């Protein structure tokens, strides 16, 4: 599978990483190289094999659906690049 420049541009956008137009050919080339390497997996017969969901045979822990934590908005906001009046602040969102 080789990735063309349009696909590289699309992947970068999906990943929300800005990539300059002149850097796209190199990125497409590198991603293609990695995907070619991954294609070895096609040699393996995986018929009837379950995809692994948990490496140790354990059920994820469950608990009562109740509030067990919280009440410290100030600490949550402390590392925010822009926080105002108890909220995270972001540029205006217009959809």
């Amino acid at each position, binding site marked *: 599978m080789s990735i063309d420049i349009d696909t590289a541009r699309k*992947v970068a956008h999906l990943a929300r990483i800005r990539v300059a137009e002149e850097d796209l050919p190199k990125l497409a080339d590198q991603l293609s*190289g990695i*995907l070619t390497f991954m294609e070895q997996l096609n040699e*393996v017969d995986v018929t009837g*094999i379950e995809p*692994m969901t948990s*490496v140790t045979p354990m059920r994820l822990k469950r608990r009562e659906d109740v509030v067990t934590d919280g009440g410290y908005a100030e600490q949550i906001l402390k*590392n925010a*690049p822009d926080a105002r009046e108890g909220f995270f602040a972001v540029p205006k969102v217009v959809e």
Partner: protein
Amino acid sequence: MSLNKLTIAGARDALRKGEVTSVEITEACIAAIDGADALNAYAHKTPELALEQAKAADARIRAGDAPAMCGIPLGVKDVFCVKGVPSQAASNILAGFRPEYESTVTQNLWNAGAVMLGKLGMDEFAMGSTTESSCYGAVVNPWKVDDALRSPGGSSGGSAAAVAADLCLAATGTDTGGSIRQPAGFTGTVGIKPTYGRVSRWGVIAYASSLDQAGPMTKSVRDAAIMLEAMASVDPKDSTSAEIPVPDYEAMLTGDIRGKKIGIPREYRVDGMSDELAKFWDEGARMLKDAGAEIVDISLPHTKYALPAYYVIAPAEASSNLARYDGVRYGHRAHLSAGDGIVEMYEKTRAEGFGPEVQRRIMIGTYVLSAGYYDAYYNRARKVRTLIKRDFEQAFAAGVDAILAPTSPTSALALGQLADASPVEMYLNDVFTVTLNLAGLPGVAVPVGLDSKGLPMGLQLIGRPWGEGELLNEALVLERAAGFTHKPAQWW
């Protein structure tokens, strides 16, 4: 002997006898750190915090309440959140981030009385094998045998360099695809990656959650046993933390491995393996045999597919985990131009904050999870992962107690040696280590000798799930038989 050169076990015994104080050991470490800026092992030094903790530890020891780690000065990989101390996984995207909370691992260590010397350099978000991919700059291996500066390996390269150069008594590391064992091998130190679920991941900045596991990096196998016991716990904050009590690992170090069956996996004898590495591997097997173990040839037929499976699964999980770095809640936010909306904020912030390798892995992960490719790549890789785990299960079911293998294809590389390599060529470094992350198994790297260049070579032992105690005992036998006592000559 300078006090910073002590092992954990040596320091513990001397502290309990009152022959030395934690403040004295801590001061020796701080002096060693200040004299080792050329190695760039420490990204953030915390000497005031260290001395405060050391004083408290001394008081505790005097009061007769001294767990094994009490008063032991440690370095902490930058991937662990430590309250109030910069914790940014060597990434610019977390510039300025000071956690308001503490990781479970570091909390366990502070509860046991350990002392924090500072945060150690690493590959950004633990993605790398050389510690060159870091916002703090490359860490330098204290092992220097010619004009070249060498890499300590990665991603826990700062931890490995700090332990090898006696800039701490031991350090924490994390291992997603070999990031504890490979740097331990490159620096003549010991490192264990525990069974997945043994050590809490809470407060450890995530790379690939189904593979990440923290462990100790130490100067001896005994120290690894002592420190692992302190790091490990059953943690309600980590939903994958196993409900299995933590045993007394040190008490399991009997040095007796008679009758144990050690498997030598034939698929690890890869094309192009150097004669030198093959010789170390054979020697290691002979040492275990001389100690009374039975050496058996085994097959792990899907070994070849571990690396491509890893490089699908790990980036897929990373793309999901690292979606949280969006310039909203913490860390870096790009300067925006007039008219920029929220998408521009995300895209500019992430382009500025993430380094090139992290960006590549996020994008590969995004691709393999995207509509139309999910089954072809991600699901297929997860099926292959099932088969890789099954290989190990079949070996253990046939009576194998542990598996002996190399840790990496070469000894430490020069800094910049992989600068022109393709990403895939870089990934080949992890060929011997990723398998057991995929299978969730414990593995320990032990130094066994110096190669013809004079650089350390390590071997790894791979154990059964939850069998860290037995595994460390086998590692102890290898350590004793190899008698590796070399230290890097101080040039820094």
